[in-house]
């Protein structure tokens, strides 16, 4: 599924990375806990989170996430947006809650990140 399809499915707003919407996303994972993300994240993951500070962007960069979708209408702060631009990580924001976001993506064929080894 491409980021563009994900954006349309979630009726998400693109905060940065408009020119990267053709990126192909193979799997996703969601958590508000960055330590969780650092434990289960795999390179290429689409990160779904309600944590909107700069640490979400740093965490995405550390694990080579493809993009971040903020749920519950969360908006990253200025520092986060600036970092994401530097790092080339697209940021999207959807008004949907975490459960609905995951459910929609899953039911449209986007699998979850595999269990930690």
């Amino acid at each position, binding site marked *: 599924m491409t980021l563009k399809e994900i954006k349309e499915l979630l009726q998400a707003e693109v905060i940065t990375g408009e020119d990267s919407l053709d990126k192909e996303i193979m799997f996703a994972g969601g958590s*508000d*806990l*960055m*330590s*969780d*993300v*650092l*434990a289960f994240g795999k*390179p290429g993951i689409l990160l779904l*989170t309600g*944590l909107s*500070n*700069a*640490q*979400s962007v*740093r*965490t995405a*960069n*550390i*694990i*080579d996430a493809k993009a971040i979708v903020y749920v519950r209408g969360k908006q990253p702060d200025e*520092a986060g947006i600036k970092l994401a631009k530097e790092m080339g990580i697209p940021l999207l924001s959807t008004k949907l809650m975490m459960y609905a976001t995951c459910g929609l993506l899953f039911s449209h064929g986007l699998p979850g990140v595999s269990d930690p080894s």
Partner: protein
Amino acid sequence: MSDEYVLSQKFKIKGGDFGKAGRTSTSIKEILKEIGIDPSIVIRASISVYEAEMNVVMYAKKGMVTLSVTPEELHLKLEDEGQGIADIDQAMKEGFSTATHEMREMGFGAGMGLPNIKKNADRFEITSIPGKGTTLDIIFCLNKTGNK
């Protein structure tokens, strides 16, 4: 083991500086990529140093990361001055945390940092003197044999 360093570099970390937290780990990741470290080791080392950096920011006054790379291994040494850890076995348990509400709001403080560092590293050592500080040695083997 050879003494020949590919790279040795030090980075300062300020305790309590939540705004800049994670900067050092972001830079270290860039360096590791640039010098051509295997991508899977880059990720494991970056995750480990990020959790360790966050611990210094959250629990210590100040700290220093020394990144050394030899042909055999990648060594991340974190030394901090701060409260230290009285019971290391307890601190190493998944879920044990003394994080404050503010730290949890940043997405950390689930008590999974130290266990995850240990899981990612090929060798991991932690020593601490309560009231003085904590030292972590996080080591990754760069030749195939000792690798995880």
